[in-house]
């Protein structure tokens, strides 16, 4: 690990409170926590829903061993407060009094009841930055509509485009693996929250931020939206590729993504293939033609591709600046020499699990120290430390709150 990552971080000055269950707010707060900010995660009694989603070692559901929970919440301290009850909201108030940023993804319709109404928070804490994430934003006709990852993948227009150039009209629009829309809600909120923090450094003024997952993902659809607004064409997952080769094919030991974007890349690919006769055919004369005749192209290239091992072909093609890529498995990633040399994986000692390697620093900072400094919190692990040690709640009161299920 980089020596600088052990140094004190200027982000240690930033105090963040996070609430709402699941991925969006947790990911946004993680982005800043990993740079050194102090994050307190507020969970509902019973714990965050990601504690029940895994992946779990040995598939045994254990709220202290969920892979996704650990990834999202290492570097944070954790407390429980039932925000649906006034005693829980009183605890939240104490937390917010010392906070710079609140990041949450409580649904707009449930905010007022949990003490999280944006306007009320602005009035009560004029210096606080409130970054609130929701599927559809906090205003407009769908503000109170319910949305999960799948919902937003469809509402944003992404699913309609996937899988690209699909030959299966009877199969549905397809969401991407994982929780992409929720991650995007989180990182957009984190970015804007830091912008608001800088504004506060200059002006002393806090504010609230309304992030809609539907909107952030709809802004990421490449040129698909403009096909409508510029040329009045409706896009679809069905149809053909704009250019070719652009396909996934079998190799001797896996799969490769075969791609050539520029004509010079295609020329070097043809050389690598040993200049086969068919490459001169009219059908493949330029990238547009190769896109239209992709099935024929794939059949002709398929035999050659199938003789290679994936990683060897990858290196060989890239050595000629042909932008192939392996269809990597998770194992391939953990065994990647490139990622190992760049020290991408971050080691964490998580109680109950032991040593684990997590996806690490996504952008390598020359000066800001990025580090996993502490494991993900056990449920309510830091209640006494924070409520009693830092916020003046007596031990008797905390015990009472525990007994009544508030904390």
């Amino acid at each position, binding site marked *: 690990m980089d020596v600088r990552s052990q140094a004190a971080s200027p982000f240690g000055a930033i105090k963040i409170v996070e609430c709402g269950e699941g991925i969006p707010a947790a990911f946004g707060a993680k982005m800043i926590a990993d740079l050194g900010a102090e994050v307190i995660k507020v969970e509902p009694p019973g714990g965050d829903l990601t504690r029940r989603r895994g992946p779990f070692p040995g598939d045994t559901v254990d709220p202290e061993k969920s892979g996704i929970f650990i990834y999202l919440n290492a570097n944070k301290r954790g407390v429980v407060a039932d925000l649906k009850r006034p005693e829980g909201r009183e605890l939240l108030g104490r937390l917010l009094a010392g906070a710079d940023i609140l990041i949450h993804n409580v649904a707009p319709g449930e905010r007022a009841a949990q003490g999280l109404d944006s306007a009320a928070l602005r009035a009560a804490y004029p210096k606080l930055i409130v970054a609130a994430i929701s599927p559809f934003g906090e205003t407009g006709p769908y503000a109170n509509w319910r949305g999960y990852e799948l919902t937003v993948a469809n*509402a944003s227009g992404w699913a309609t485009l*996937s899988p690209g150039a699909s030959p299966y009209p009877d199969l549905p629009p397809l969401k991407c693996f994982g929780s992409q829309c929720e991650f995007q809600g989180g990182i957009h909120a984190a970015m804007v929250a830091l912008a608001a923090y800088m504004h506060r450094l200059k002006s002393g003024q806090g504010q609230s931020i309304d992030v809609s997952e539907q909107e952030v993902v709809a802004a990421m659809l490449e040129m698909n939206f403009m096909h409508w607004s510029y040329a009045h064409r409706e896009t679809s997952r069905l149809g053909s590729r704009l250019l070719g080769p652009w396909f996934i094919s079998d190799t001797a030991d896996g799969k490769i993504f075969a791609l050539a974007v520029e004509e010079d890349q295609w020329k070097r690919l043809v050389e690598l293939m040993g200049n086969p006769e068919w490459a001169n055919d009219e059908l493949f004369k330029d990238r547009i033609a190769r896109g239209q005749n992709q099935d024929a192209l794939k059949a002709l290239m398929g035999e050659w591709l199938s003789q290679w091992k994936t990683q060897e072909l990858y290196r060989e093609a890239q050595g000629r600046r042909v932008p192939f890529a392996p269809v990597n498995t998770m194992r391939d*990633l953990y065994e990647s020499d490139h990622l190992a040399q760049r020290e991408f994986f971050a080691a964490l000692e998580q109680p109950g699990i032991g040593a684990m390697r997590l996806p690490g620093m996504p952008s390598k900072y020359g000066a800001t120290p990025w580090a996993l400094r502490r494991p993900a919190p056990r449920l309510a692990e830091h209640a006494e430390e924070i409520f009693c040690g830092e916020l003046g709640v007596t031990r008797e009161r905390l015990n009472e709150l525990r007994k009544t299920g508030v904390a």
Partner: protein
Amino acid sequence: MANLPLSGIRVLDFTWAWAGPFCTMQLAHLGAEVIRVETTARPACVTRLIPPFADDIPGPNRAGYFNQYNQGKRSITLNLTRPEAIDLACQMVRQCDIVADNFAAGVMDKLGLGYDKLRAIKPDIIMISMSGYGQTGPYKGFVGYGPPASAASGMFFTTGYEGGDPGEIGISYPDPNAGIFGAFALMAALTHRALTGEGQYIDQSQFETALALMPEGMLEYELNHREPGRHGNHDPVMAPHECYKAAGDDEQWVSIAVGGDDEWRALCRVMGQPELAADPRFKTAAARKQNESALDEIVTAWTRGRDRWETARALQAAGVAAFPAMSNKDLSEDPHLNERGYFAMLEHPEVGKRQHAGVPWKMSATPCAVRSPAPVRGADTEAVLKSMLGLTLDQIEHLRKSGVLV
């Protein structure tokens, strides 16, 4: 205008294609002055060259791709193959806060615009290089685009219909993702500078920013030495969780996702089959997950004869997450997005008023908006050279004639 979070921040933007411009557009949204450096001397920015063009009439200022992701920026032309142009760029860096590029690793150094040189000119400069694989490591010279990054990051391997092959994911997702991670990293670096006075260099790999989004799959392997598999639209825990056929053609679908028992009972009620809620096959979340295929058949039988919006509205009214699969036209006409003021439609000198995705967040104290349409190529060359470097019109004309400003 002066009251935006990044008011007073100036960005010299060498990015091209999509990932980089998506990054710097966020900065423009937040109030920064973003000066795009373009050239016609080398292969031009691809997003100016590929369709869709306004009304299908090609032209570098008519491309939707460019005009969407460069909103709010200025454009100057500098022929970076000429030493005079590099000198001009260096003089501009002295008055900038951020330099951004997404060239292949090492290109900025070769151009004479590497971090060490720029730092000597402007000690607290913040620089980000967003390459395919990063500036170090055995693959640093590899060619990166978004779709191969989807393959390399495992997104293809883990996405696909149940029992089917690895699937493509519809968009070149790792590109805008690298852009937004880059924008976050720049915001972190600006915060760092505001707190300490110190600038820094950020080496960002598109590959690694995509991996930040793969924890569920990667940790399945790390914890259980097993690949996560492909499960279509299904969820590891929730069921029903699928995009179901609606009445109409191949493009009419409605997604339904049921999180808890309350939502399940509500779905049964809306489907007019309240007795299903008590059916032992579906009574608990675990049972629903186990009998997911049977459940999907029951739900499809209900959705396939109904309009997708009718289904979505009826379910949402009962608290069930449902939404049609939206096309670009659907998004354009969506009453919710329109009421929220999502779309930016500013007068562009060549394509007029077109609908673009605008700023996807709202700030109460510093309201952001797209402040100008994407620039016509080179529109600001003269103004920028005059105001930033104090060049005279004669000097600019001379540089233009000698091929430095193309």
